[in-house]
Structure formats: structure tokens, C-alpha cells
């Protein structure tokens, strides 16, 4: 089936179609027989020249154009880029400490125009010593930079904004030239957004001392960028990092010069040269960067698999890892939508060089035909070509992106999908046409795989409920849009989607004040808004993160087996004895293993036995927690607060018993009483804080609010520390419950009995399954929780090895993981025991955009 010319068609790509000879027009110079002049190639069959360089004949072509009304080339000169590259003798090194760093004996990679293949410059690849030099520069700069008053940093950021403004043409031309993206998109969107980001974060820096009291900058931040969108992704992260007082080392993929230019502009501002350092090199350098002294945070932006590998590699290395993974987006089109506008939403999401990834499109069955017809008609009008042409919708993203898309489309076809492509692009061109895939069977592997740019995969759904199930049925949770003119339905879907950003009747809007990020396998880091600032802050007084990695930790066997327990002497027993068993689904149950573990008191005497929980018990507890989750989330914050307060009152009644238990474990009577009292207060405080979690933002260029919603993570696994057996348990439990999570807790290893005492009250007060307490071997239970794919977050307070293992194992479903790294925590202090850090970690932020207008 050869598809050519215009008109609607559903075509299956086959090999013939991709042969240039079949697709090329007169004399092999025009490749597009239809009205999509993606690119032209000289008659001699030489290199791709792109539309821009299409022959401009000397004589007037006006007569011809008058008849055809074709679009012509709108070339943007890249002379300024060449001039800039000439200042570097066409050899780009790294920009470190305000200077170009061009060490000798380094490999170099060419930086090319993706369309013509023109050699632009060679880029030196960093070696570990270059990384060390950059980290050193950032560390040195950190002292002066983080010590500045926020207002001074704000001044500096404003100056950087002005600097960018002065050189914006060079920036946008360079970015468009080397990435191949449409210059219009870079010029009209990326650059203004970059300036807004600087402005917004300058304001945040200015008011930092008041607004962010109690927080301090983390230190040196390592930032790893993807090849496309490097300029914008960099700005989203360096702006908050610099604003709060961190300094940055950026690692960009080979041949991405825009971040280098940006660093040069920042460096030329003067007094703080080392705050922004840019290295070009492969991602294999990330562990080197993460291992540099002083590096406290690594922010990674790239593919899901890379992120997973990185999380495993960096387990125990020290820096906190912030992941922003994947690029796929989702669009949900209901029958109550303005279909034509939704089709434009699809264009914004996949075919306009605005977004980095492909799109999963869910369309209600009743408007399926109409939508497909409109989509295909719209696709016929898309124009592709060289990015530096001012009138193209889509540029190229280079051979790698093209091959990825090609592979996906071929796979989809072999699985029986229908493929529609607007226009024909020969396989040896750097371009890939906009592609619509439909009828992909639900069981086909392609349905679960991430959709690459510029592919749209459409599937029908029957009801809004089914749409939600389908949308939430992939492991990714980046961004989504909902198209419906019915407010109630739109909100229902917007709240129900498990993603970081939801736009209602729009797609791809961004603003510096709105936190953006994902959940699940899209990574849990945020950028933009207040949430973006916290990514680079830590509570004041937190000790620096040091490497605690144990090289001989065997991930395969850690916590795998539970040492068997034997009767251990005369039982002195607590009085009154708490019920024996694991507290799961609201009642005490016998452990699956039917064995117990002895608990000793401070004298070393056998205090009693608790149940020995195992993998099956954890599975049951997680299941119970999942069953309880919808009901618990559905409770109003007020209702949750009331229950926490009721639990606090019950705890108060139990005070004498609990204090006695703690005393048996060697706590001074006075301190034991204080610990119980403080535990009661934690419950009351978090009950009160459960209110008012959400608020709305007002952003530029949008009429209507953006809601910043704080949503529970889902089922949380919490492994409590040995120290402060009751207080730590309560300090961890209270915020998770207050924010709507359900939880599986492993109480203190040495002293689990007070936690079991409290379970008796929870059994009567809380809905079954909201809290589950599993006693047993800490390592083993931590292993079960960390490897569980349906636990949405893990907090581990225990040994260094257990921490390292938890970080490693959580990479499975990329759950956010918070570990103690073997350090005890001062639970009795307000900041550590009940600070805003817990609140941040116990919920995630979703931005819900609600444009208005009639």
C-alpha cells in the first residue's frame, strides 16, 4: 500500500515506502510529493540541506507562487553561532570557575548540524579529573555564594537575566541549530520562560530569609541533562539551586553547547565565577560526580531506565538523588470536549517541538471517529523541516530519536496496529513524520512501553472511570491533560489521574511558579514553585551527607533469611501483656511463619515474644493498606484530624502503661513520661496540620487558577529506628496518616511492644488497614518492603547497610526512598521530629491547571 499525495489514508509502512527513490519527486530533489517539504537534497544526492537552503532562483518566482500559494523558506541565519564557535577555535571544552577549561589529551566528539551534517565544532569529553576540578570550583564558590544575603543573590540572578536578554539571539540560534528543534519554539517559548524563571527565583531568593527560615542550602548540586531541551531543563533546575545558595556542576551529553554558552554568560558576570560549571561528557561520569566531596544532591533528567540504573549505582554514595524521568505525556479526550481544540492539544503535546516525548491519547468511544478524522486532517497541515526555518512546526531530533521512533512504529505494526503518517519521509533523512498509531491491542508490549517522540498512540475508552483505570495503568506518571467542558467531570478526572501535572482543556502550559514533576516511575523530583526550592534545601543543622557505602554488601542476600529463634529462657513478660500477633487489617493475626522473636529488656532478660513477620505478612499488610487507601483518602482532613486526636486521647489514657514499658527498656522514668507526652503531642499537631494542605496559584498568561494539590503517596512502608521506640513510631506515623497515606510500619527492633500497645487503640479507632504493624527481623522486612512494587514510598530508619539496600532495591518501582544512612535522629526535637521535612516527604504535589473563559 503506497501512500502518497494528500487525502486521508491509513497506511502501513513497508520497506518500499521508505526507499528514497520511490518517495522523491522530480529529479530526486524534492522529497515530499505532498505539501510537506520536509527537506530538500541537492540534485547530486549529496548531503541534506534542509528546506532553508532550497534553491532561491535569481528570477522572480512570484508568478508561480501566486498560483500555488506555497509557503516559502524563512531562514534564520546561524552566522552568529559560527562567529561564537570561532572565538573558541571551533573546539569547545568545559566551562569551569569562570574560565574555559580545555585540558589536553582528551577525546573529542563532533558537534554537527543534525540536518546537513555540517561540522560545527569538536567537543572535548571530560575525564574524572575534570569532574574533580569542576566540583572543587563549585565547592570553593559555595562558601561565598551561600553566605550571601538572599537579596544579593537575587541581584545576581537578575543580572544574569539581563545578560541572557542581551544575547538571546545567539542562544536561541545555537539551541535550535544543534538540537534541530523549531527555532520559533526556542525563541518564543524557551527563552522567555528562561527569563521568567530567573525573575521568579530572584524574587524567591530575595525573601528567602523570611519565607524559608529553618532551611539551608544543601551544598554543591550535580545536574545531569538530556540532549534535547537542555537549555530549558537546565534553567528549571539551576535557577532554584542558585537562588537558595547552592552551586552547580552540570554534566551535559556530548555535543550540547547551549549549557556551555549559558555558563559562559553567567561566568562573565564576574564576582561568583564558580557557581555554575558545565562539563560535557558521558553519563558514565555521574558516579564520579556524585562521589566528589561536597556534592550533596544529584538531579538527573533522562530516561526511566537510566534513572533506575543510576539509583542502584548511587545507593549509599551519599548525595540525595532527584529523578525526573521519561517524557511521555497523556491526553484524555471525553465526549464533552471541544474536539477541535483537543486536537490542537495533541499537536502541542507531540507535534510542535514543544514537548520532549510522545503522547498516549485516550478518546471516548462516542467521539472516536470524529476525533480520528480531525486529527488526520490536522496532521496533513503540519510542516516539518530544518529547525532554523521560522515557519516549520517540527524539526528533527537527530538520528537516535528517529531510530527510536522508527523502531516503535515497526514494532506496533507487527503487533497489528494501524499507523497513519502525514507525508512520506525517506528512511535516510534525519526527519521523522508525525505519526498516529491506533488499534494497538491492549496486551501488545507497545501498549506498556513508553511512547517516543513524535508518536501518538490512540486508544478508545467507554466511560470516565475506565479512562482513569487506563491512564493510571502504566507505571509512568508525568503529565496529562483532560479535555471536557463539564467542570465536574474534568475535576473528577483531574483529581483521579496519578500524575504530577494535569491541564484541563490545555496541554503543555508551564510557569515558574507552578511545581512540575511526576510520580511513580517518572521520578518524584519537583521543579518550579516552592516545591522546586525545597529540592535544594535541607533543614538547618542537618549534617552533611557523607558516603556510607559498604562495598561488600550483597544485595542478593541482604535480609533474605531470618535467623530462626528458639525458646530463650524464662519469660518475665510485660504486664498487662499486649495481644500477640501482627497488626494487619485492623486486627492481630498470627504470623505466616508461625514463629516468634524474643524481646529482651535492658537487663538482658527475656521480656516476651513478638510475632516474626515475613514476606507473606508484608504482602498481606500492603494489600490491606491498599484496600483501606480509597476510604482514608476520601476522608476530609477534618475527619482525619478528629481520628488522630481521638488516638491521642487514647494514648494519653495509656500513659502509665507505656511509660512503664519504656522504663523496662532502660529509659529514665521522667524521660519515659516525657516521651509518651511528646508522642501524644505529635498526633495532635499533625491532626491540626492535616487541614489546609492545598492552595491555588495565580500565574502569568493564564486566566484562572492553578491548584497546588498535596496528594498522599499511597501505601507507605516505614521502618522505625531502634532509638525512641514510641516517639519515633508516632513521629513517623502521624504525618503519614494526617496527609492521607495508609501505612505498613515495622516498629523498633529492640522495643516493639509499646507500638503493639497502641495498635489496640488503633484497632478500635481507625478504619481497618489504615495502619498495619509488622514485627520481626528489620532487615528482612525492609527487604520485603523495598522490593515490593506496590509500595509507593519507603522510609527506612536503621542501619547503614539497610539504608544502602533500601536505596538500591527501591529502584524497582522508583519509589521515593528516605533513609537514615545509619545515623540516629533527634526525634524529641521539633525540627527533626515534627518538622516540615516530614510534611514534604509524606505527600506529593500535583498541579491542576484550570483555565477559564467563555
Amino acid at each position, binding site marked *: 500500500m503506497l501512500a502518497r499525495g494528500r487525502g486521508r489514508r491509513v497506511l502501513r509502512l513497508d520497506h518500499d515506502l521508505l526507499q528514497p527513490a520511490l518517495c522523491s519527486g522530480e529529479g530526486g530533489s524534492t522529497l515530499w510529493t505532498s505539501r510537506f517539504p520536509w527537506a530538500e537534497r541537492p540534485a547530486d544526492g549529496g548531503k541534506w540541506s534542509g528546506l532553508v537552503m532550497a534553491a532561491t532562483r535569481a528570477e522572480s518566482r512570484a508568478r508561480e507562487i501566486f498560483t500555488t500559494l506555497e509557503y516559502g523558506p524563512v531562514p534564520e541565519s546561524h552566522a552568529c553561532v559560527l562567529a561564537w564557535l570561532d572565538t573558541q577555535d571551533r573546539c569547545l571544552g568545559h566551562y569551569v570557575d569562570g574560565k574555559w577549561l580545555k585540558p589536553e589529551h582528551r577525546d573529542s566528539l563532533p558537534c554537527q548540524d543534525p540536518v546537513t551534517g555540517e561540522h560545527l565544532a569538536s567537543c572535548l569529553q571530560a575525564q574524572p579529573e575534570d569532574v574533580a576540578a569542576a566540583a572543587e570550583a563549585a565547592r570553593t564558590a559555595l562558601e561565598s555564594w551561600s553566605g550571601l544575603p538572599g537579596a544579593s543573590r537575587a541581584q545576581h540572578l537578575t543580572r544574569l537575566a539581563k545578560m541572557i536578554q542581551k544575547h538571546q539571539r545567539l542562544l536561541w540560534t545555537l539551541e535550535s541549530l544543534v538540537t534541530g528543534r523549531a527555532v520559533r519554539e526556542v525563541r518564543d517559548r524557551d527563552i522567555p520562560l528562561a527569563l521568567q524563571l530567573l525573575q521568579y527565583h530572584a524574587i524567591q531568593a530575595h525573601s528567602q530569609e523570611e519565607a524559608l527560615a529553618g532551611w539551608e542550602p544543601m551544598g554543591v548540586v550535580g545536574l545531569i541533562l538530556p540532549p534535547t531541551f537542555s537549555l530549558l531543563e537546565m534553567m528549571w533546575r539551576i535557577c532554584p539551586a542558585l537562588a537558595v545558595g547552592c552551586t552547580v556542576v552540570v554534566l551535559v551529553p556530548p555535543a550540547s553547547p547551549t549549557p556551555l554558552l549559558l555558563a559562559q554568560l553567567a561566568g562573565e558576570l564576574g564576582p561568583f565565577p564558580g557557581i555554575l560549571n558545565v562539563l560535557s561528557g558521558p553519563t558514565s561520569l555521574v558516579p564520579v560526580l556524585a562521589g566528589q566531596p561536597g556534592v550533596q544532591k544529584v538531579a538527573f533528567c533522562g530516561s526511566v531506565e537510566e534513572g533506575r540504573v543510576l539509583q542502584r549505582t548511587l545507593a549509599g554514595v551519599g548525595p540525595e538523588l532527584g529523578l525526573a524521568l521519561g517524557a511521555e505525556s497523556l491526553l484524555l479526550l471525553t465526549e464533552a470536549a471541544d474536539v477541535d481544540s483537543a486536537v*490542537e492539544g495533541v499537536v502541542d503535546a507531540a507535534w510542535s517541538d514543544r514537548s520532549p516525548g510522545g503522547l498516549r491519547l485516550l478518546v471516548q468511544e462516542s467521539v472516536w471517529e470524529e476525533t480520528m478524522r480531525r486529527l488526520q486532517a490536522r496532521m496533513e497541515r503540519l510542516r516539518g523541516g530544518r529547525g532554523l526555518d521560522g515557519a516549520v512546526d517540527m524539526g528533527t531530533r537527530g538520528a537516535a530519536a528517529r531510530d527510536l521512533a522508527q523502531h516503535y512504529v515497526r514494532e506496533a505494526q507487527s503487533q497489528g496496529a494501524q499507523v497513519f503518517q502525514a507525508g512520506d519521509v525517506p528512511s535516510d533523512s534525519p526527519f521523522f513524520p508525525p505519526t498516529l498509531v491506533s488499534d494497538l491491542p491492549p496486551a501488545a508490549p507497545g501498549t506498556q512501553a513508553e511512547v517516543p517522540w513524535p508518536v501518538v498512540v490512540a486508544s478508545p475508552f467507554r466511560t470516565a472511570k475506565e479512562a482513569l483505570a487506563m491512564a493510571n495503568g502504566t507505571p509512568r506518571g508525568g503529565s496529562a491533560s483532560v479535555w471536557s467542558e463539564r467542570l465536574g467531570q474534568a475535576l473528577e478526572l483531574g483529581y483521579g489521574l496519578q500524575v504530577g501535572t494535569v491541564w484541563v482543556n490545555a496541554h503543555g502550559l508551564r510557569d515558574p511558579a507552578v511545581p512540575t514533576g511526576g510520580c511513580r516511575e517518572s521520578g518524584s523530583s519537583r521543579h518550579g514553585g516552592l516545591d522546586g526550592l525545597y529540592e535544594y534545601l535541607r533543614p538547618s543543622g542537618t549534617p552533611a551527607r557523607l558516603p556510607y557505602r559498604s562495598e561488600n554488601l550483597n544485595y542478593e542476600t541482604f535480609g533474605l533469611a531470618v535467623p530462626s529463634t528458639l525458646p530463650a529462657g524464662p519469660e518475665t513478660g510485660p504486664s498487662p501483656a499486649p495481644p500477640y500477633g501482627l497488626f494487619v487489617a485492623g486486627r492481630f493475626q498470627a504470623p505466616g511463619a508461625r514463629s516468634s522473636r524474643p524481646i529482651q529488656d535492658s537487663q538482658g532478660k527475656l521480656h516476651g515474644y513478638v510475632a516474626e513477620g515475613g514476606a507473606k505478612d508484608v504482602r498481606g499488610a500492603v494489600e490491606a493498606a491498599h484496600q483501606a487507601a480509597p476510604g482514608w483518602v476520601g476522608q476530609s482532613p477534618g475527619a482525619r484530624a478528629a481520628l488522630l486526636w481521638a488516638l491521642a486521647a487514647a494514648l494519653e489514657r495509656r500513659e502509665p502503661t507505656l511509660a512503664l514499658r519504656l522504663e523496662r527498656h532502660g529509659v529514665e522514668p521522667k524521660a519515659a513520661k516525657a516521651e509518651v507526652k511528646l508522642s501524644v503531642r505529635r498526633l495532635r499537631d499533625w491532626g491540626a496540620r492535616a487541614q489546609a494542605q492545598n492552595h491555588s496559584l495565580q500565574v502569568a498568561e493564564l486566566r484562572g487558577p492553578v491548584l497546588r494539590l498535596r496528594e498522599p503517596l499511597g501505601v507507605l512502608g516505614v521502618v522505625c529506628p531502634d532509638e525512641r521506640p514510641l516517639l519515633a513510631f508516632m513521629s513517623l506515623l502521624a504525618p503519614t496518616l494526617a496527609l492521607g497515606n495508609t501505612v505498613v510500619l515495622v516498629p523498633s527492633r529492640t522495643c516493639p511492644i509499646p507500638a503493639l500497645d497502641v495498635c489496640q487503640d488503633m484497632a478500635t479507632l481507625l478504619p481497618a488497614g489504615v495502619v498495619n504493624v509488622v514485627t520481626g527481623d528489620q532487615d528482612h522486612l525492609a527487604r520485603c518492603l523495598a522490593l515490593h512494587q506496590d509500595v509507593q514510598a519507603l522510609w527506612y530508619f536503621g542501619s547503614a547497610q539497610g539504608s544502602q539496600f533500601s536505596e538500591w532495591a527501591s529502584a524497582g518501582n522508583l519509589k521515593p526512598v528516605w533513609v537514615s544512612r545509619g545515623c540516629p535522629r533527634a526525634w524529641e526535637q521539633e525540627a527533626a521530629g515534627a518538622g516540615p521535612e516530614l510534611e514534604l516527604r509524606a505527600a506529593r504535589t500535583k498541579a491542576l491547571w484550570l483555565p477559564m473563559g467563555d
Partner: protein
Amino acid sequence: MSARNPGTELDLSWISKVQVNQPAVLRRAEQIQARRTVKKEWQAAWLLKAVTFIDLTTLSGDDTYSNVKRLCYKAKYPIREDLLKALNMHDKGITTAAVCVYPARVSDAVKALKASGCDIPVASVATGFPSGQTHLKTRLEEIKLAVEDGATEIDVVINRTLVLTGQWEALYDEIRQFRKACGTAHLKTILATGELGSLTNVYKASMIAMMAGSDFIKTSTGKETVNATFPVAIVMLRAIRDFFWKTGNKIGFKPAGGIRTAKDSLAWLSLVKEELGDEWLKPELFRIGASALLLDIERQIYHHVTGRYAAYRDLPMS
């Protein structure tokens, strides 16, 4: 002009479910202007093409035979001959698409055009232009008189009251009667979109007007506070496309009011090209109602040919 639109039976199901999201349409309107542009020869050719879409208009209280005559002459010779020669376009017979006047001036225009020996159609506004607030009987009579005077295109205004109160059957019936009164003359229906309240109403009114047999739908009279805007045009163009998909009839589109610069006219051309396609880029299906626009286009052509910016005295007035 092209084949007439026979219209269809009134089918309210075509409009009952329609949804237009205003903020989304506004965003599309912004994008479309930023994403398409033409330069150099393309620009010159497009501008000359734009000239052939113009309904050169004068709708003033002080119109007399002399300025209508001047307008007609300008319609025949819209661009200075030497400029056209320089572009090798002098033999393309470039004129404006029509001249557009008040009913009382139709005979003047017909006379002037006959005198200069050209067959540019004369369009007349009618039906109580611009408000439409007169009796149906007189509105119909007005159409008939204009046609008798020689107008071959009638630009009628719809009764906004019927739209705002949702009387779609009544609106359909009125336009049907206008269509009948026109006889062989083409019917261009002005929706006065600035007074319809919402974009959803614009879509519905467009659809009703086409079902009732309009050959063109036109944005505005040029006398409302809000004239031809891109968002409104996008909605109307989508309605035209939907009507085409349902019936196979191509209906023309005419933005009018506030289109003054050459750059604007290019944006309108690419808007139609993007939303409907090249088939609509001909005078039979696309018109621009304007008066000052022509002069600015001529200035741009002057600049393209000579490389210098023109003074107003360099170009003949209309």
C-alpha cells in the same frame, strides 16, 4: 462566483452538542500567527493574491458618486502598473474581488464600473445594516431593491436577538427568506460576532446560516466594537469545514473590519490555508472586507520592488 449553496433542511442536532472552549481557541489563535510567515517573493506573491480577495469597501454616511467612482477605479487598478510589471505580474488581471457599498450607492458603483469597462461584481450590504433592527418586511425589500439596482452579492446582517435568545428555527427561516429574496445574487451572511456573546454561539449561528443557504459567512459589519478577530475566525472556519464534511458544499468565508495592514492580511491567508486548505484560497470562497488595507499592501509591494519605503503621495488614493 462558484456554485451556489443550496442549503439543507434545518437539523438542530448539528449544533446541539457543540462545545467551543474559548481559552483553547485563543491559544490556537496566538499560535497560528507565530507559526506561519512568508518572506521575500513569497510575501510579494501572497500580498498580490490578497488583493484579489479584497471586497473594497466604502460604507460611510458621506459616500457620493465621486468617491464611489474613485473606489471602483481603484478596484480595477489596485496596484501601480509599473510595480506589477517589475514582478512580471501585469498580465494576471489583478483586481479586487468586488466593491462593497450601501444599497443606495449600488447604482453608482454599477455605473462607474461599466464606464471603466470591467466586470468586478458589486456587493451591497442590506437588511438594516449594520444593526438589523428593522422589520423583516423592509429588510427583504431592501435586498430586492439592491439586486434590482445591479448588486450581484448581498451582505446581509442577521438578527442578533434571535441568536441571543436561542431562536434557531426563526433565524433559519429569516435567512432562508433572505436567500430567496436574493434570487441569483450571492448571499453573504454577516454574523456580527462581536455581539453574539460567546464562541459557541458563533459556531451555532455559522452552522444555521450555512444550513439556510448562505454562500458566504462573514465575521462582522465593521461597525461593532469588536471586529474580525482570529479566535472568532477559527470557530467559523471550523464550522465551514464541518459543514463541508457533512454536505460536500464549500461555503466562503469573509472576515471584515479592522484588517488594515499587509501583515494582517498575510496572517488571514495562512489562517484559511491552515484551517481549510488551499481549495479555499480563491475569491469564490475567501474575501477580505477592507478599505485601508489595499494601500498598505501597495506600499509593501513598492518596498519589495524598489527596496525603499513609499510615501503616501507615491501611490494613488482610492
